């Protein structure tokens, strides 16, 4: 049970961004991403401005660039899709470097690439400056149903444990000379998944009983209530507000 109490994306620090209450950050981030998604895709400069805003947040939070770039791999599947769009979409074509590409598809690919990347970076900034427990409390404060928050809490707490268990089973399989063709492999992997489910579920039963015996009533106690001050709300609103200004200008010029 030596699993970490912080998640992989978190980076400890003491900056103004780290100090902001998590629910303030969450609301600010959501507003920012909404503004970005609603921006017309032809306003190329606006996305540069958004990127600059995010870079400002990253600098304030003292997050090094390689740290962010390394975590951007999650968007790779959609980058592939975005790169395929110019070949798939119909409509008038333009010729770029000897390739006939759909104009519409190029715009669409750009649209997905720009907005998707900005969204991913914004989420990384949130995750890097907020630990999991603060995020859960933020969900609670934002009136997410308590049962859901609780399920999330258990999931976050045990995700590393279960993943670790899966990896140990993998090591065990491979150290016993496990290999084989794809068909046979699927069967063995799936059997491991079945074993993993039984272990997870039985662990859940034990955790539940242990908690009941310690007086658990169905809700997690809130130890500290992080009150957001007006200054903090204003500080956090800077990001979506600047983005909104950029977006409005973009709408007027396009």
């Amino acid at each position, binding site marked *: 049970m030596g699993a970490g109490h912080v*998640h992989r*994306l978190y980076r400890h620090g003491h900056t103004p961004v780290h100090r902001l209450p998590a629910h303030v950050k*969450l609301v600010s*981030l*959501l507003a920012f*991403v*909404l503004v*970005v*998604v*609603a921006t017309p895709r032809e306003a190329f400069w606006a996305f540069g401005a958004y990127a600059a805003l995010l870079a400002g947040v990253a600098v304030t939070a003292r997050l090094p660039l390689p740290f962010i770039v390394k*975590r*951007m791999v999650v968007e790779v599947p*959609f980058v592939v899709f975005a790169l395929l*769009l110019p070949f*798939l979409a*119909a409509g008038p*074509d333009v010729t770029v470097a000897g390739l006939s590409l759909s104009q519409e*598809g190029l715009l*669409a690919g750009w*649209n*997905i690439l*720009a*907005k*998707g990347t900005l*969204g*991913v970076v*914004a*989420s*990384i900034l949130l*995750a890097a400056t907020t630990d999991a427990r603060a*995020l859960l409390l933020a969900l609670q404060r934002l009136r997410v*149903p308590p*049962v859901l928050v*609780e*399920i*999330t*809490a*258990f*999931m*976050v707490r*045990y995700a590393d444990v*279960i*993943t670790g*268990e899966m990896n140990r089973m993998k090591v065990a399989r491979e150290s016993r000379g496990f290999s084989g063709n*794809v068909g046979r492999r*699927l*069967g063995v*992997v*799936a*059997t491991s*998944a*079945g074993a993993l*489910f*039984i272990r*997870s*579920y039985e662990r*859940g039963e034990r*955790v*539940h009983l242990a908690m009941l015996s310690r007086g658990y009533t*169905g809700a997690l106690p809130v130890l500290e209530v992080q009150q957001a001050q007006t200054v903090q709300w204003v500080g956090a609103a800077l990001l979506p507000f600047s983005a909104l200004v950029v977006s409005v200008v973009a709408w007027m010029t396009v």
Partner: protein
Amino acid sequence: MHVPDGFLDVPTSLATGVVAAGAIAVALKKSRSELNEKAAPMAGLTAAFVFAAQMINFPVGVGTSGHLMGGALAAVLVGPWTAVLVVSVVMMVQALVFADGGLTALGTNITLIGLVTVLVGWSVTKLVLAVLPKRPASVVPASFVGALLSVPAAAAVFVLLYSVGGATELPFGALMATMLGWHTIIGLGEAFITAATVGAVVAVRPDLVYAARGMSQHLVLRTPDGQEIPATAVEVADEPRRSIWPLAVGGLGVTLVIAGALSFFASSNPDGLEYVAEDQGFIAAAEDSAVAGWSLADYGEVGGIPVGVAGLIGVGITILIGLVLFQLIARRDRDRDSVSA
């Protein structure tokens, strides 16, 4: 299959967000009967399991791999409503903590993976279970079919959403065909892993499999002279067996409508991909399959059979093959039982 920000426009994202919130609200209410009271730890651990299981990659084709969505798997193991909660929580954590899937697309992701795969996977599983003999082992083939269909269903809903609020106009028919094609292959992988996982759990702890509840056989005392006495002291009144006909006829009707009507819709742009392919000059690379000369190949474009009819015939053949397969499975099970007894 995690949709990022900017893939769908704001109105569509908000609409799917409302759908997702509604689904979660219903699931919260309904899951109480599935989970024993206040068993959040169990649901949380199941979420952790689905999270870990989504890391299982399987090869789909040249250079690509799909990963498990886990909707059908979760539904079979812990019940549909708990599964909606569990998969939604996984989506939420992935968006918030792992930046996987956009924040504005969270509603879309929950709708696609948390709702569509779970509900389709579960109802198909239930439908198949109604045909199979009533014993825990039947859950395995049933979950196979459920998982197999859940993935293309999610892909189809995604294409519908994309055609409503997508960032660009793509030829609907071509996109649908491509997505369905790929996701049927991914669905096969999902189905194999789901069925084998369920099989492994059924073999060890059938009581944990929600879909197999109430299917375990009563204990029997066997006397030396081969007599079998039911070990139940109290007569258990059999639950009135609900007729499967309404469900079966309804499902068949919906399938036929979709196959007959929607294939017309899909073919309103019949040569979408081919048009683009020709346009891009890569149609020469495409070879017709070996059955291209058959009347039904290319969905009825060749032999003069109307598209809708071709769809209907396709559904008919699929059902026929399915029935034969299930008969075979059922017979094999019966044979095995008679040998072991």
